[in-house]
């Protein structure tokens, strides 16, 4: 790795091997995220995507290989799902305060962050009463309150309908552009995520291929993994919308188009 890349490297894994119950989940996976870059890990179920992310976050220790975290790195993490126990009463506002020192959780900051992710109106709702898409945005807001250098998102659109998914990926893209954070996310729905990603890592216990989404989608290993049809449809995907839908399903016509 040359110095120019290393200079703005945020988080990386090198040759990570993890065996759980005699099952080799990762066979030497490497991955890096630099400042202002959106990296997406794709791969079939059981490919070790979440395991790799968990290792990079320090939640599990690799059997061998290295994890590099830039000194002083602040991570905004959004776990795969949050199922709040029904016995715990919890408002969105109170939930947001939990993840940050009190000084960073002032009312104004929380309000601004909720508005940034498009859910200013649910600040006082009970966590159990909000929709799947709203829940994902609350989680992103909690991560953003920490002023992270990198956002790590594990299946950020799980349980969200297709229009909502595109909307969420666009939001993540917007956050990246406005804040200059690095983004590392895991996904298995390929269609939408590819359009909003700078670099795709195709993982199946090891890194099969990586690179620009369009290049990866033509890579033989990728085609083999996901099938001719899926791979082909992704290559065609990057396209322009003349409108988009917000969380409420309202249509905004702003001549919006994807960047990148």
């Amino acid at each position, binding site marked *: 790795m040359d110095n120019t890349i290393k200079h703005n490297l945020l988080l990386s894994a090198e040759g990570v091997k993890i065996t759980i119950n005699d099952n080799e989940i990762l066979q030497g996976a490497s991955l890096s995220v630099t400042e202002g870059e959106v990296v997406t890990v794709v791969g079939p179920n059981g490919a070790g995507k979440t395991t790799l992310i968990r290792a990079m976050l320090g939640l599990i220790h690799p059997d061998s290989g290295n994890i590099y975290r830039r000194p002083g790195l602040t991570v905004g993490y959004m776990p795969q799902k*949050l199922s709040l126990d029904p016995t715990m009463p919890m408002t969105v506002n109170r939930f947001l305060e939990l*993840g940050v020192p009190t000084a960073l959780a002032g009312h104004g900051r929380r309000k601004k962050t909720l508005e940034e992710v498009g859910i200013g109106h649910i600040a006082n709702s009970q966590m159990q009463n909000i929709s799947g898409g709203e829940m994902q945005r609350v989680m992103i807001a909690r991560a953003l309150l920490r002023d992270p250098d990198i956002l790590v998102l594990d299946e950020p659109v799980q349980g969200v309908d297709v229009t909502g998914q595109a909307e969420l990926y666009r939001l993540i893209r917007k956050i990246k552009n406005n804040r200059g954070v690095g983004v590392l996310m895991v996904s298995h729905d390929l269609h939408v995520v590819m359009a909003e990603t700078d670099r795709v890592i195709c993982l199946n216990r090891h890194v099969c291929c990586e690179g620009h989404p369009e290049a990866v989608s033509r890579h033989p290993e990728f085609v083999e993994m996901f099938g001719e049809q899926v791979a082909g449809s992704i290559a065609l995907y990057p396209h322009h919308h003349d409108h988009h839908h917000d969380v409420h399903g309202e249509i905004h016509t702003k001549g919006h188009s994807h960047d990148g």
Partner: protein
Amino acid sequence: MDDFIIRALLAGVGVALAAAPLGAFIVWRKMAYFGGAISHTSLLGVALGFLLGIHPLIGVGVVCVVAALMLLGHRGKHLGNDALLGIIAHGALAMGLIVASSISGIRVDLMAFLFGDILSVSTEDVYFTWAGAIGVLAVLGFIYKPLLSITVHRELAVVEGVNIRLIETAFVLLLAVAVALSIKVVGVLLVASMLIIPAASARSFSTTPERMIFLASVAGVVAVCLGVLASLKLDWPAGPAIVAAATLLYIISAFKKPA
């Protein structure tokens, strides 16, 4: 009002105030049987206290802490937590009964420890209870935010920098101390109810964790007062009367839809 009633109320209120926030966490973390198991081991502590000639409450404290640490250390091994809790609870209860029966010469009032004897608390017991309760609340206040964060989502809390082992161990130790404090008031068999029932009653009236803790404290204090009153007027055993009052409050609360 007679002095012994005032002492009973003071001790009961102290226990209720310490138990309420811990109980809320027990309900949220689905640890009801954990509280039960720790309280069952406390009989062994009482018996050992008599056997070794030390204050029974100190025996209880030591045994509860040891049991709590054993449970914590054994987590995630080959047995499910529920089975493990059953083994520790009943094994320790049996050993406690054996040790108690082998103590000759001293009359051990087992009933008082099984069901509490709040009407006989001494001034010293009141000081002891309040010192313990304030200590528990102070430590809990200190670890409150990280503990709540772990309870909501463990891994998120780890990534956000919470030392899970430290906080969870502290919580379990607090539980052990609270159980030891409550023995005199409601007894070994009913300790867990002081933790769980007021917190459960508070759930449907609460929109935030803090409100649930506050309302659980209110419910606990009301239950203590009602129980002591019933004990005086109707000559009911005080410990069970307090728990019955708490249960009545829960039944009333169950008609309210969650906030």
